[in-house]
């Protein structure tokens, strides 16, 4: 029955990775930014949810909402404090802006991480789950929360897909990721589009963080590995390709879960990392990369 265990656990974990990676890729696709404070935003959202339910004794739904709100606020803060000032700066040469933004978002992530550790200690925290209890399917005992996580992740991804492909503003965002000059020519203000995108990113990262907090728990130490896994997945799938990220998330998620169950939990990150190295050597633009 270990096969089913791997199937279910792998699916849930991959779904969580997918949600995080999608946000990461969206930001890169539309505004060209590799946000290295990604993990920090996710953890901050989780900790906010934990604080709301644990310290302020709010219900799990309110807690989750608090976490997502924090995610959105931090996303906007990232844009306003690190990305936009550098993009508009006259003191930094154009060719160096990308590097500066990378470094600035990395620093910002560290700032958030240290703030969390300072305010809430770096102990692991779990968020009060919305769905409790255990269920047995096909001989495998799994927390209901795990199924809930997978469902919510895919619902969020589905909503994003609907937004981008079926709504007019969503199509403008998608168009901006293909060709920012093009949307300007059609009368869309890019600055508004960027705000929308960072807001959506905040929703995605915040949700992923809260769900992670409910599912596995987080601590300020999770920040680095979360950012690392998000960009490994995104690089594997191809920078800027959302479908690539989704597929890569599942590849990585299943590789990790299978390794953890079949070999040893200690080695679980190795196969994904080896795959990443192979891709870097053979096809640096990733599976579906565009840029």
């Amino acid at each position, binding site marked *: 029955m270990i096969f089913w265990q791997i199937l279910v656990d792998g699916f849930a974990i991959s779904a969580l990775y997918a949600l995080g990676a999608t946000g990461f890729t969206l930001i890169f696709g539309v505004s060209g930014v*590799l946000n290295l404070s990604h993990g920090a935003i996710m953890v901050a959202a989780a900790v906010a949810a934990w604080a709301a339910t644990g310290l302020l004794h709010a219900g799990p739904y309110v807690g989750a909402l608090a976490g997502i709100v924090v995610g959105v606020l931090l996303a906007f803060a990232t844009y306003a404090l690190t990305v936009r000032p550098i993009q508009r700066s006259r*003191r*930094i*040469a154009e060719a160096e802006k990308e590097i*500066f933004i990378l470094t600035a978002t990395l620093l910002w992530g560290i700032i958030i991480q240290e703030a969390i550790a300072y305010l809430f200690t770096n102990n692991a925290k779990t968020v009060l789950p919305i769905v409790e209890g255990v269920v047995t399917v096909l001989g495998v005992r799994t927390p209901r929360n795990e199924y809930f996580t997978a469902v919510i992740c895919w619902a969020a991804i589905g909503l994003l897909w609907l937004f981008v492909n079926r709504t007019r503003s969503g199509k403008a965002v998608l168009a901006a990721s293909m060709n920012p000059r093009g949307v300007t020519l059609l009368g869309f203000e890019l600055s508004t589009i960027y705000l929308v995108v960072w807001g959506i990113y905040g929703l995605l990262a915040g949700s992923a963080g809260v769900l992670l907090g409910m599912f596995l728990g987080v601590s300020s130490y999770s920040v*680095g590995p979360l950012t*690392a896994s998000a960009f490994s997945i995104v690089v594997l799938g191809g920078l800027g390709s959302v479908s690539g990220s989704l597929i890569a998330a599942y590849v990585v998620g299943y590789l990790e879960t299978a390794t953890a169950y079949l070999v040893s939990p200690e080695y679980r990150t190795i196969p994904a990392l080896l795959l990443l*190295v192979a891709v870097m*050597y053979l096809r640096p633009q990733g599976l579906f990369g565009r840029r």
Partner: protein
Amino acid sequence: MRALVGSRLFWFGAVVLVAAAVLPLWVSGYVLGLLTVAYYTAVFAMSWDLLFGFAGEVNFGPTFLIGLGAYTAGILDSQFSPDLSIWWCILAGAAAAVVGGVVLALPALRVSGPYFGLTTLVAVLMLQNFIVVFADLTGGEIGLPVPDVITIDAKLNYLIAFGFMLVAGGILFGLSRSAIGLILQASGQDAVQAGALGFNVSKHKLFAFAVSAFFSGLSGALMVFYLGTASVGTFVDIGVGVQVIIAAVLGGRRTVLGAAIGAVFLIVMGEGLRPLGELATLIVSVTALLVILFFPNGFLGMIRGGSRA
């Protein structure tokens, strides 16, 4: 005008160096120890700055090279001591770093922009995972204690680190100003033009990688035998890498010497803020972010010519 400032800076620098050299006479072992770590970090930062100036790309994983040097030296010593002198271990560490640097350079130089940064970051992750997984050999997350150290005398350790920093800094700075430094700068700034002027750009960038790797690995190996232990948190962690990059940026990109100033500043400031506990890293990070946003040219850049890029 520049010559005048140059020579004023030069004399100022000379005075500081002399003061630093005789510091052991007056100052406690604690301060000496702090500065020893700062000097080794300064070499990390200077090596990074050289590569940045020459490859023209940001290496996000300097700790790949540092870690290779430190752990190779540490593992060799823990396995073969006392049959193997620590100086052979140190040399082996530097060599391992050079090999690692060349192996990293091959895919990294084929790509550019964010992919280059990511490739270097992946290398660090690989090393980190490798160390944790093969804990029997490497000590895993706990760390690897090495049986030997260079010396237990704080003053001697300080002088060795200081001397090493001077020599390494001299060589790295000299390289950056030499004729080959000029070729490397051309390769980094405009590879197509450099090719049209008759330079084999790949060869030169590989050389830059090798030099940066050599000094990073050597400094890492030396530091292992100062601290008496090798751990992921000191040599490999991305946070350490970020510190190296910040040091170089704070001091002034592409000045080489600025990186040393930035490193000493960061280490001393970090230590000075230690009483604040968790807040210390926070404050240092905020400072660094402000510097990047408002003074992108760093200390040396500011002194030389204002805050315009």
